């Protein structure tokens, strides 16, 4: 914006030239001064319109980025916190489940080891096997039962490791959100001023239409709650 003093300095020579030409009755000189005056005025208006357009563009751009950031801050970041809290619960539950199963196996192994030790001592004392037959048979029966229980516990330990798949999917979705946040903040920083290169973002494409596991408290729309629901739905479709 030019000040009144600047405007005076800018236009005064042409106004003076027009007044002089008028006094002198110089028609050509008057027209030349008037044309120069007009040109000077138009250049000023054009410059101002251009400046307003740039300001408006920047304001709109900032508004777009700020709206995106507000959405990220108000909705998606709290969702991400809930998702990560769910990951914690999943990993915690799985670790406890695994430890419970291992702790159930240990006494069975200890018991068998003790019984075997006792049988060896008894065999050494007796010096013959036939007298120990009832104890040996009881031991073998016990070994069979205990090992079946250990095998079943081990199968459950393996299943409990399935938490890694679910938690991995949730963590990936939070990583995508973090990438979006980074991108929006980078754009804002770019508009705000030259504070260094804007961060290059790499939000993963793909994953289209896949929502991942159901997370308590996060609404995905109509979801099934368990296998029975799935079976009922498919049965309704004639499967």
């Amino acid at each position, binding site marked *: 914006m030019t000040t009144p003093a600047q405007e005076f300095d800018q236009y005064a020579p042409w106004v003076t030239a027009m007044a002089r030409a008028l006094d002198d009755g110089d028609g050509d000189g008057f027209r030349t001064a008037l044309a120069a005056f007009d040109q000077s005025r138009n250049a000023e208006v054009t410059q101002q319109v251009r400046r307003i357009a740039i300001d408006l563009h920047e304001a709109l751009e900032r508004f777009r980025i700020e709206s995106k950031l507000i959405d990220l801050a108000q909705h998606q970041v709290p969702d991400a916190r809930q998702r990560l809290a769910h990951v914690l619960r999943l990993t915690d539950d799985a670790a406890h489940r695994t430890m419970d199963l291992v702790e159930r196996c240990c006494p069975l192994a200890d018991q068998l080891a003790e019984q075997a030790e006792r049988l060896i001592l008894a065999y050494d004392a007796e010096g013959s096997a036939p007298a120990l037959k009832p104890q040996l048979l009881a031991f073998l029966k016990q070994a069979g039962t205990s090992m079946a229980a250990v095998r079943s516990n081990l*199968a459950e330990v*393996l*299943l409990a*490791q*399935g*938490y*890694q*798949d*679910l938690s*991995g*999917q949730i963590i990936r979705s939070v990583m995508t959100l973090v990438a979006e946040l980074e991108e929006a903040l980078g754009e804002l920083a770019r508009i705000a001023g030259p504070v260094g290169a804007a961060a290059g973002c790499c939000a*993963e494409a*793909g*994953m*289209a*239409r*896949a*929502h*991942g*596991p*159901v997370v308590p408290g996060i609404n*995905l*729309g*109509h*979801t*099934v*709650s*368990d*296998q029975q*629901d*799935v079976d009922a*739905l*498919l049965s309704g*479709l004639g*499967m």
Partner: protein
Amino acid sequence: MRVQPNLNFLVVDDFSTMRRIIKNLLHDLGYANVTEADDGKTALPLLKDGNFDVLITDWNMPGMPGLELLKQVRADARLAKLPVLMLTAEAKREQIVEAAQAGVSGYVIKPFTAATLKEKIDKILAARAVA
């Protein structure tokens, strides 16, 4: 149902832990021939070149998701009748309907139990024997 131990299974999941769980459960059920792939892109050439009897696939995978793999299988004349069991955490009702419309043979939701997996495998193998 009597187990046919010579059946060839292809298990597709991007998480190696889940592939291992499924593979171990299949072994427990008496199926020893299990091949693994980590997404649809790596699974499809294996399916086209191999001689698989059952495909078990996750949905949410990078590269090619399970639904796309299912569609490609159904679109291939040689593979069109292959039993496909979707084993996934995807729980939206419309997704399950979409999988059914794409021709899935069974849908198991994660987390799952060994009994559920057995039941669904028995069911799709029984349907395969009839077909």
